[in-house]
């Protein structure tokens, strides 16, 4: 059974312009959570009915705390950003499948962009071996030090060139020609598509975390689908339940 939870906010702070880090006490979620899963936050305000899905950035098994990092992009995230330490917020989770971690794999490559970076923090903690991370941002990188702290080698690209190289993650990849046994990626769709094409050429398996507008978040309403391959045909799979992480080979990019 799952429950609708009342989570106590421990901290909610702006860590970069319009980017917030929120920490809750959420022992029930922490017990089950995997990297790449998400939780649904309810704004509980008249006109904002639907929950907001936000990826799990970090879980702390000792303190029972969970960290999310979110961008303020509209009314819902705006409301969440005004909540204070001590307030409670309604939530359900963890939701979705998360990344699969294979103990045999020793050479990992993470490629993430913008607000796709947060789920990679928890992932890095669970990967054994060599971890190389390419992060792309428009400006103002986030979570770079946190990811380094867990033992990964991190390279940054910014579109304005303020930090790291000027350009995007694909420019980093073209410069470095990295080798890897497994790729993990999350970020804007054009980036994911580029990662998919590049990794396919090199025949490296890739796990891509997709995003789609959602309603229920648990697999019941079928509003969040993405096109996937099915034998000779194709089918619409649920990003919230069958994903958000899909194997590159599954995803169909064109409409």
């Amino acid at each position, binding site marked *: 059974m799952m429950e609708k939870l009342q989570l106590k906010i421990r901290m909610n702070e702006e860590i970069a312009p319009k980017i917030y880090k929120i920490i809750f006490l959420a022992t029930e979620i922490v017990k089950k959570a995997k990297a790449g899963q998400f939780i649904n936050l309810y704004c509980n305000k008249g*006109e904002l009915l*639907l929950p907001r899905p936000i990826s799990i950035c970090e879980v702390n098994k000792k303190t029972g705390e969970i960290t999310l990092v979110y961008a303020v992009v509209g009314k819902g995230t705006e409301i969440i950003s005004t909540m204070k330490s001590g307030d409670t917020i309604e939530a359900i989770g963890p939701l979705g499948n998360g990344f699969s971690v294979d103990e045999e794999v020793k050479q990992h490559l993470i490629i993430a962009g913008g607000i796709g970076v947060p789920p990679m923090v928890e992932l890095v903690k669970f990967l054994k071996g060599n971890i190389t991370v390419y992060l792309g941002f428009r400006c103002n990188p986030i979570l770079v030090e946190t990811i380094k702290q867990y033992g990964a080698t991190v390279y940054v690209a910014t579109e304005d060139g303020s930090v790291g190289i000027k350009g995007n993650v694909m420019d980093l990849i073209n410069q470095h020609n990295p080798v890897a046994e497994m790729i993990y990626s999350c970020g804007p769709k054009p980036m994911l598509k580029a990662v998919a094409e590049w990794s396919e050429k090199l025949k490296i398996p890739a796990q891509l975390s997709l995003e789609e*507008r959602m309603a229920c978040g648990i*697999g*019941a*309403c*079928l509003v969040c*689908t*993405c096109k996937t391959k099915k034998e000779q045909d194709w*089918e619409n799979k649920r990003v919230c339940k069958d994903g958000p992480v899909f194997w590159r080979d599954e995803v169909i990019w064109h409409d």
Partner: protein
Amino acid sequence: MTKVNMKVNISGVELKNPVMTASGTFGSGIEYGEFVDLNRLGAVVVKGIANTSWKGNASPRVAETFGGMLNSVGLQNPGVDEFIQKDIPFLRKYDTKIIVNIAGKTVEEYCEVVKKLATADIDLLELNISCPNVKEGGVSFGTDAKMVEYVTKQVKRVSKQPLIVKLTPNVTDIVEIAKGAEAGGADGLSLINTLLGMAIDIHKRKPVLANVVGGLSGPAIKPVAIRMVYQVAKAVGLPIIGMGGIMTGEDAIEFIQAGATGVAVGTANFINPTATMDVLEGIGKYMNQYGVEKISDIRGIIA
């Protein structure tokens, strides 16, 4: 709280209480079964099922609007064979009634689903006549009273379980459509389905939904639904399952007083995964507060 009698009878099938799920918002109960005890529901109305699998529309399929949401799922479903094999055995483990919502693009397709369900262990059929009628150029079956009578009659002829016809609100005169279903031999009516709507992303200068238009549901549509249930209950003798924006027990009571026998909870599930249980408890609370012994005592009491 004293025990109140919430039993209702819909087209000859007795439900332990009037609370059910609105088709398409609850799957077949597998996912929400993690949050609520399905045994406590009067019935589970499953997502729309067609004769073969339907892929549905492109994404985005959802847009949040003031007090509601638009969806353009396009009746994605695995087809009746897979449904019979997987979903019915799951639901039968619970002490609740099974109502199967039926989708089709032609009268023949509707009939094919119903024939396949004839030997299935289910309790009621709910015919979704908001589907596009392919032979009539894609206009919904449900917008023409003669067409409604015809499709109801054809489906009724091959159905083994009682047949509920689910009406679309996108019509000028809902009473005329309800009478069409009654004349066709419907055993009950469900209303309302979603209202056709649209939303535009003014920054991208594009419709929010890939399908451009979609169905509006949620609290925003409740007054329209109450009005339609009230009008239909006054004009037609069939039992009614009322839905459209039910979030609380009070909302459900409003539908019942307007004339509904059953009530279905849809969009509210997305906003609150235990909404069905909250509605059920809210009905009990109201009955206790006002000393209502049987739910039927307050049904259709609005003059």
